[in-house]
């Protein structure tokens, strides 16, 4: 069995365009919770320069909103691809990809963290 196949729930957040390509993937045996997803998005933002983040700030906001919205609706099952473009730019964007399983579920423990 391939290493990546042992995890039922996989996906990634990605920021790209303008010579930038950074991502934060997940691969785990349980569905990714909203809190952990938002943490991964923050981790991705921290990989970016201030300038790279600022131009994508609105796109990151939309990605965060989608994750939170999914949490209110029981999460989302594969296959998911969402692209939040930076309007007026040639190729700058933030992507969400759920490649396997289930993601963005609400965890009762999340509220306590």
């Amino acid at each position: 069995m391939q290493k990546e196949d042992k995890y039922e729930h996989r996906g990634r957040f990605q920021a790209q365009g303008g010579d930038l390509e950074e991502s934060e993937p997940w691969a785990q045996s349980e569905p990714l919770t909203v809190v952990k997803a938002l943490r991964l998005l923050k981790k991705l933002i921290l990989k970016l320069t201030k300038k790279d983040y600022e131009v994508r700030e609105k796109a990151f906001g939309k990605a965060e909103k989608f994750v939170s919205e999914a949490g209110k609706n029981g999460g989302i099952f594969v296959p998911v691809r969402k692209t939040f473009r930076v309007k007026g730019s040639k190729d700058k964007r933030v992507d969400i990809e759920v490649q396997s399983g289930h993601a963005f579920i609400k965890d009762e423990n999340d509220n306590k963290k």
Partner: protein
Amino acid sequence: MIGTLNASKSERLLFENFLNDKRIYTLNENYWIKLIRKIGSENNLNQDWLNRKFSNNVKFYDGNPIVSFKINENRAIRIIQEELEGETSEISAWIEKGVIGTITEELVVALELTDSTKSIAIELLEKWYDKNTTIQEMEEYIVNRI
């Protein structure tokens, strides 16, 4: 590889307010479905290869994507429709090469829908439906066209 074109705002915006009115959204969605089925009538199209609903069956209604189709075993299309924000209407396109299931090549068209962006989208879809079009040819076509 990506191409982006700005068109004049004086053009007619199609399905205006689609993100705020579910009736318009549904009309808009059906418009794309009919258009894509018409262009790809010779292909074995498989609608909604991407999930557009949350786990509780509630639909997104955000145009992202407004439609998605699998057009053969490894090739797909995704249309993202956005509200007009600036002074000009935009259309962008690129080939997504990440793997989900059997799909390894996806034409993504993101646009603000006007008569001219619609025409360009149709041209791109027609080119992509042709199984003889390679990824490299499609990327060159996108850059040259938009």
